[in-house]
């Protein structure tokens, strides 16, 4: 019953088109005020302490790094590299899209704004060697999700933080420990690569069956040039993963390092953006991270309500009783 009210309220509020964060917060506030005697002052405190956590701070850093990479032309070079490697196979452009999403999306670590992805495969498409519009969109839409598996992934950071202090039991009643951000990152690599290769195989098969046009094969020299140009972007993954895995940095520190690294690469190595563009990138990243952090804060509030009303337990009971 409680669960129905809470989720009903949440869905109604969300459907009015208000920001998701506000809908979450307002649901909690309304429910606590109208139906319980939990002091609402606790909510204000939660709004602050909800994100008072060093692990969460990886999110703004990764977003900043990602923005420097896109603005600095690193993204473009990595796509060019991917295209030069697999562009001549059947559905090569789709494959390049998958590869680009796997690496570049991993670099970005951003799950928001996936819509931008449909622009990735444009250059090739304009060249007349592309896939049909629907196929391209499909490929990019599905492989855009690879970014949450291949580190650094913001979703993993949020998961790790959200489950950090919680006590969970497996069906046998043993305590289940939550995973650290580093462990989650490591755990994501193999499944991410598997998924990427499966997506690639599907793309290839479809292109082969329908005999979509292919691109001319890039020579080894061209491949090497593209690789050399994109090496700085690829190195970032090595720094982040290597740093976390060897224990040189905490995930948040790795994120900050990658932001500084991406800044140096964008401004001083590739020179695609000047120092005067930096404030704009900072502002864009700051507002994007503020939006995400605001959702996280309100989600913390929401989980506070869930816990205090014991919704998870009720749901478990409901599921086990109806099974």
């Amino acid at each position, binding site marked *: 019953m409680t669960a129905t009210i809470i989720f009903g309220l949440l869905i109604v509020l969300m459907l009015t088109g208000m920001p998701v964060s506000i809908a979450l917060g307002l649901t909690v506030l309304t429910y606590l005020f109208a139906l319980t005697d939990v002091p609402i002052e606790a909510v204000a405190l939660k709004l*602050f302490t909800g994100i008072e956590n*060093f692990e969460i701070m990886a999110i703004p850093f990764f977003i900043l790094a990602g923005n420097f990479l896109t603005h*600095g032309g690193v993204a473009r070079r990595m796509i060019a590299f991917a295209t030069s490697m697999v562009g001549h196979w059947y559905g090569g452009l789709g494959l390049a899209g998958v590869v680009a999403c796997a690496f570049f999306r991993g670099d970005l670590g951003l799950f928001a704004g996936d819509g931008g992805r449909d622009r990735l495969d444009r250059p*090739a498409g304009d060249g007349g060697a592309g896939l049909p519009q629907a196929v391209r969109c499909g490929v990019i839409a599905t492989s855009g999700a690879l970014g949450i598996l291949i580190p650094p992934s913001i979703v993993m950071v949020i998961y790790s933080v959200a489950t950090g202090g919680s006590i969970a039991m497996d069906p046998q009643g043993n305590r289940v420990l939550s995973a650290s951000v580093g462990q989650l990152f490591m755990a994501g690599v193999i499944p991410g690569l598997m998924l990427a290769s499966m997506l690639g195989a599907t793309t290839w098969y479809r292109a082969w069956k329908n005999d979509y046009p292919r691109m001319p094969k890039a020579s080894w020299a061209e491949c090497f040039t593209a690789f050399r140009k994109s090496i700085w972007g690829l190195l970032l993954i090595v720094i982040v993963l290597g740093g976390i895995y060897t224990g040189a940095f905490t995930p948040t520190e790795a994120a900050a390092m990658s932001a500084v690294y991406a800044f140096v690469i964008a401004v001083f190595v590739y020179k695609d953006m000047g120092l005067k563009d930096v404030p704009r990138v900072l502002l864009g990243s700051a507002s994007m991270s503020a939006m995400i952090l605001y959702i996280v804060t309100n989600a913390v509030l929401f989980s506070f309500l869930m816990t205090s009303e014991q919704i998870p337990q009720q749901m478990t009971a409901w599921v086990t009783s109806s099974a």
Partner: protein
Amino acid sequence: MLLRILDRLEEIIIASLMAAATLLIFVAVVHRYGTGVPWLYPYFIQLHISWAQELCIYMFVWMAKFGAAYGVRTGIHVGVDVLVNQLKPVLRNKVVLFALFCGALFTFVVGTMGLKFVIELYATDQVSADLEAPRWIVFSAVPAGSYLMCFRFLQVAWTFWKTGALPHHDESHVEGIELDTAPPPQGAAR
């Protein structure tokens, strides 16, 4: 005029907090490894930046609160507007205004609760763990940011009422991937 100054100030604050926090953590990491280098040791050991993490968190909390207000102005907050956009214009306007006022209400309530909390905290002399900064200054991010956000919601609602325009953040536009002007990928060259 005053509004323009507020707008600029908001942008400057969040952008510089972002930059400062990044540099701070970078310096902290460099410091940690630099202390291990023999010839740097005498210089680095005199420097104590164990408070870096805490300061970084506070900077980001402030950035998040003001950035959220900035986000209201620029329309970056994600919402589910699929259903609303299907409605008839008259009804749609009402729903959108309702949503905006809900936003204003929520932020106002939160801001007020935060303010009460900060006032209580002001009397207690609590300081933070590493920086030993007064806790009330740190916590005043909640009322300040929330009231600003409330103001922004009302501002957006007012503009919407007058002109029917909502700030909109174009998700599909990614700066820096202007592929039309970019050189064609290596393989495509014929």
